[in-house]
């Protein structure tokens, strides 16, 4: 983890997508960065735009799906959004790898594991066929797949969920990327397998020193493996900082809500909590703060003006008017969540 230039820097990314119901303003100005060797977790509810950001940056949407796109995504100084498909292809897999959420649907059912990993290897380098096979087996070993020779000749449906995810990781790493984007890599797996996969990611990251962007909605995962966290809501980053800062001294009401929602074994109350209300639909333009409708601390300024990023510590920022000097300080635990409160 060095304090030098960021490996990937997304700046003010706006993205609109065509859907059957019309245009969805999926990303409304996303700004985040990850430095070499660091693990950044991107947290948020389903639909907040986490996956869209990652896929949008890598150019994985079909041209006809994109309604509009603006902003910058600098990778090693080059803006990915302006690159041609050819140039992007050279970066995908070789510089930036991506692991997707559901291993069953992310692996092509009609090709063997070995074929798919081999393909990924050959996409970026010329390798002799015998050598390809060796490297595929080595990769499978690296991600902890037992009996790799057997597994390489099998089809995805013949592997369990955990093994499939490992194979997917192997394929993503085949090109030797310096940044790995893991989009909810454990969500579709059993809890015990989740822990294994996380361990694997952590050890791979430590061994190769690559940066990781871990997209998740699970704060527990964040605490385990990330260095920094970015909290996302309604297509924007609402808070960003180190794990210590965001989880111990959160500075945004939404983050407070997320943390309150975590079930605790030592809590006196019997009910599970959730944040009141629903996230906005992103089909109409939002005026002011997107969280204002669900925030008990909302002020008049919140519905009229969108909050800028305010500093909340060294390298810690939050987009909330509560951090403005004119705002009154609030006690954190107030009726944000439904269920009994401790006042």
């Amino acid at each position: 983890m060095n304090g030098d230039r960021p490996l990937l820097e997304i700046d003010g990314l706006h993205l609109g997508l065509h859907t059957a119901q019309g245009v969805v303003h999926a990303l409304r100005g996303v700004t985040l960065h990850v430095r070499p060797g660091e693990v950044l977790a991107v947290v948020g509810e389903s639909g907040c735009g986490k996956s869209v950001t990652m896929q949008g940056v890598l150019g994985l949407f079909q041209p006809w799906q994109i309604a509009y796109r603006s902003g910058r995504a600098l990778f090693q100084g080059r803006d990915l959004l302006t690159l041609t498909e050819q140039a992007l292809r050279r970066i995908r897999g070789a510089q930036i790898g991506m692991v997707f959420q559901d291993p069953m649907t992310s692996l092509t059912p009609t090709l063997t594991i070995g074929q798919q990993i081999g393909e990924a290897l050959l996409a970026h380098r010329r390798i002799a066929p015998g050598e390809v096979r060796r490297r595929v087996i080595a990769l499978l070993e690296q991600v902890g797949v037992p009996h790799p020779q057997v597994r390489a000749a099998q089809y995805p449906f013949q592997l369990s969920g955990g093994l499939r995810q490992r194979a997917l990781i192997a394929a993503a790493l085949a090109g030797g990327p310096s940044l790995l984007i893991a989009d909810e890599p454990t969500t579709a797996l059993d809890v015990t397998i989740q822990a294994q996969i996380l361990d694997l990611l952590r050890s791979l990251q430590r061994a190769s020193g690559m940066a990781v962007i871990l997209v998740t909605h699970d704060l527990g995962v964040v605490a385990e493996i990330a260095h920094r966290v970015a909290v996302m809501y309604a297509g924007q980053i609402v808070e960003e900082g180190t794990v210590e800062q965001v989880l111990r001294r959160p500075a945004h009401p939404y983050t407070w809500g997320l943390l309150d929602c975590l079930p605790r074994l030592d809590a006196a109350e019997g009910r599970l909590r959730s944040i009141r209300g629903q996230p906005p639909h992103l089909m109409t333009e939002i005026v002011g703060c997107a969280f204002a409708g669900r925030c008990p601390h909302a002020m008049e300024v919140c519905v009229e003006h969108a909050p800028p990023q305010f500093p909340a510590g060294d390298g810690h920022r939050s987009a909330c008017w509560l951090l403005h000097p004119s705002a009154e300080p609030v006690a954190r635990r107030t009726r944000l969540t439904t269920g009994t409160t401790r006042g």
Partner: protein
Amino acid sequence: MTPAHAPEALEPSRELFRLREGSAAELPWAAPGAAVSALRRLRAHRLGVAGLIIIILLTVMAGAGPQLVPYASDEQNMLATNEPPSGRHWFGTDDFGRDVFARTWIGARISLFVGLSAALLDLVIGVVYGGISGSAGGGVDLVMMRVVDLLYGIPHLLSTILFMVVLGPGLFTIIVAMVATGWLGMARLVRGQVLLLKELDYVQAAHALGVRPARLLARHLIPNAMGPILVNLTLTIPAAIFTEATLSFLGLGVPLPLASWGTMTAEGLVTLLTGQTWRLFFPAFFISLTMFAFNAFGDGLRDALDPRLRR
């Protein structure tokens, strides 16, 4: 299309920093726009709507068409045989001087009647059979479906032809012949739907409350399976019309003096060599148009009823 997002450079005034009164519901962008999607879906199916319009127009013309001209459809006029379309005979005349326009719309009645009756009978038999099989379940279902599977292997056209040979020519025999194996598809569909719906909570609740199976079937299961059933119906009709046209073309269709579009096309075939192609063109065109209309409407209906809109 990029929304205007001017940077918030301004400093908001102090008084704005008081707590807000009012609920989330007041914010205009918080609530979803439900009406938008339904309208969108409807408009997107221009083909389906076009199909429906054509069907309506054809039905109207089948009823009113013959009245529009002063000739009866079987009125012969040996002085005006094989005249091309003109102001007096809009679609021309045939070998016997009969007005093709009038004949076309009388033929429409026959073709549409046969197509609709066969499809409706397929519906009734299929729904009853499939409904019973699906709701009975177990051994009964197994046996009933085995029968269906076995009969399904027989090509529909083949069996229809065979039945026609046995039953002899006639308007109603055609319908019977077509329905004899035509109901199989609908039966399978309905059975599948019933099996799905049987697992739903409210059905099981009704069952637990002691609702008799027949009533359960009629009041709960079938009405909720109506969507796919209707779609299947609108797609069976053009198949029936096609089969009737094919039979007529083979000489196994409606007997004289009745004339359907199929028989008219068969009669008109010879005109390829004699040049009076209007006798062939008009019935052929209307067969195609009708099939297109029902297919388009059926497709539109299916897309509209399908919750997963994947495009």
